[in-house]
């Protein structure tokens, strides 16, 4: 008996009760479609998180000071003034794996232009910042080394500030007040959106030297303290850079056995955190979809069992005229497989369409990977096989005499 014949017999079996087969297939369609769609949402969230992490530049290492403890209560990371502008200079000079460094000090101030004012984050940094962050001015320019050295009162504003203070007019050359101090706007940053939970467009950038002289002054103990140092390592040298920076800072801060007063986080760490979060998200979505798939599979088994009972006499006739165990077994297994596969293929189509509609209408990023399509296809095959075998064995083992006698 050839395989084509088996398929044709199984197909006749499916067509013999179209409504019932259709409903059974529907169960698989819904299961597979939800697997595809929900995995698509999970993958989309992952891709979105990765995009957000890499949007702020690549090969980055974030250095932050340790936390201040007051009576055993930690004030949170970055509150201690232990990291200084000089540390940043030393890293730049002494660590060969480091490509660029930008020290940062940021604080929230009132920013004013004529009668408009807004409260925003003022980021005091170095001219290397745009290159590291992959974040450049779209109008005007970023401040340069000479402005940095002479602590010039220049500012580069984010495009949200342009909107808030200048209502979209060209801000270049205008003078704004930051906490009452006068600054000249020399550039406007490109639109970046939200990255790592910060609105990158609602910021004002000034030279860090200007920051110390006009806005936040010097720390009594450490002098020019910074909130963070942004380091870009040479490509694929983040481990070396990490090592070099750690040793350098321990040396400079005279740390031998006590705990470090700074922390390093590489982009890979941040990526990993983001991925572990979205991974859990994907897993939950996948599990939910998997349950509906399981229910679909049980549906197939249920219908196959009913079908075997209903067709007992047919099985008896087939056996009487020479059908072997394997003939009957494969007839019913193939029937279950065909239903599962039909459901699988239609479910994949529906799932792809569903993912696209979610992207289009709900503006969620969804990513349908070939893996999830292949996986779904294989799973539906496995479901057909798994839930089809028991009813098929039941059919194949029927005693032909009893089967012929049944009504």
């Amino acid at each position, binding site marked *: 008996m050839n395989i084509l014949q088996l398929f044709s017999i199984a197909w006749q079996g499916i067509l*013999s009760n179209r409504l019932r087969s259709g409903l059974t297939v529907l169960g698989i369609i819904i299961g597979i479609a939800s697997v595809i769609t929900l995995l698509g949402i999970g993958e989309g969230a992952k891709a979105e998180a990765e995009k957000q992490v890499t949007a702020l530049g690549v090969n980055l290492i974030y250095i932050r000071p340790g936390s201040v403890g007051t009576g055993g209560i930690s004030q949170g990371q970055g509150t201690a003034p232990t990291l200084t502008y000089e540390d940043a200079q030393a890293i730049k000079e002494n660590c060969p794996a480091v490509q660029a460094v930008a020290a940062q000090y940021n604080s929230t101030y009132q920013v004013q232009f004529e009668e408009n004012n807004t409260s925003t984050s003022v980021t005091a940094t170095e001219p290397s910042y745009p290159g590291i962050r992959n974040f450049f001015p779209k109008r005007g320019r970023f401040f340069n080394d000479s402005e940095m050295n002479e602590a010039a009162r220049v500012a580069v504003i984010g495009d949200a500030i342009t909107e808030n203070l200048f209502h979209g007019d060209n801000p270049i050359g205008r003078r704004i007040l930051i906490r009452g101090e006068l600054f000249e706007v020399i550039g406007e940053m490109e639109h970046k959106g939200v990255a790592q939970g910060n609105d990158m467009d609602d910021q004002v950038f000034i030279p860090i030297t200007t920051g110390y002289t006009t806005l936040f002054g010097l720390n009594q103990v450490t002098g020019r303290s910074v909130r963070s140092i942004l380091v870009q390592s040479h490509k694929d040298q983040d481990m070396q850079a990490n090592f070099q920076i750690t040793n350098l800072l321990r040396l400079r801060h005279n740390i031998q056995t006590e705990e470090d007063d700074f922390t390093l986080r590489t982009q890979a760490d941040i990526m990993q955190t983001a991925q572990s979060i979205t991974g859990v998200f994907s897993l939950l979505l996948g599990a939910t979809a998997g349950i509906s798939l399981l229910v679909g599979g049980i549906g197939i088994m249920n219908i196959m069992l009913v079908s075997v009972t209903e067709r007992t006499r047919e099985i008896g006739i087939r*056996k*009487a*005229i020479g*059908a072997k*165990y394997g003939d009957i077994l494969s007839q019913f297994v193939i029937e279950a497989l065909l239903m599962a596969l039909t459901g699988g293929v239609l479910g994949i189509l529906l799932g792809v369409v569903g993912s696209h509609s979610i992207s289009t209408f709900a503006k969620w990023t969804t990513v349908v990977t070939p893996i999830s399509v292949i996986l779904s296809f294989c799973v539906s095959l496995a479901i057909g096989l798994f839930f089809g075998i028991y009813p098929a064995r039941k059919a194949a083992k029927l005693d032909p005499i009893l089967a*012929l006698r049944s009504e």
Partner: protein
Amino acid sequence: MSLLEIKDIWRTYDLGAEPVHALQGLDLTIEQGEYLAIMGTSGSGKSTLMNIIGCLDKPTSGQYFLSGQNISTMTDDQLAEIRNRTIGFVFQQFNLLPRMTALENVMLPLVYAGVTGEQRRMRAEHALKEIGLAERMDHRPNQLSGGQQQRVAIARAIVNRPQIILADEPTGALDSQTAKDIMGVFNRLVEEGITVILVTHDQETANHARRIIRVRDGKIIGNQVREARTGGRP
């Protein structure tokens, strides 16, 4: 060598407390080309005997040789093959598959015999023509009369050129005129050299055969050889 040799066959069913002996040491020999009727009331064991002759069931003890092959020791799949190639069944209720056409029904044993394509169709059409149903090959069973359905069933039984036709009350569901036609078909098959075994409780039907076996309580109680009927064909 006889076509069929049954020696001291027992068939025992374990139904609860007491075992039921449906066949109790039965012996039977059938030669190639015989036209035989097995008669008995219900409960006599004739159905059990028919199931064993038809290789649908195996004896509890005793031996059964069909064309020299020992059936008693065969596996289920081997029995299926014997049923497919050596025996053709005709049932009281026709037992056609309702969703298939007459032709498809007749092709079914060939499907399981591994005959494919044009060969299968040709042999099935030939069998239907032989039985006088050439015009109704594409009809489904519910579009056919009882007599026509039984003819399709006979075509299905002979399509694989079996040595034995085993007919279980073949006219039980037919009116007397149609029954006569069907019995005529069996007569013709016998003339072609096929061994026909009728299983019936109806004397009228049994009278078509040339030898009548009577079964009671799982044993053969009568073996009557009759004169060959002449002019029995319609």
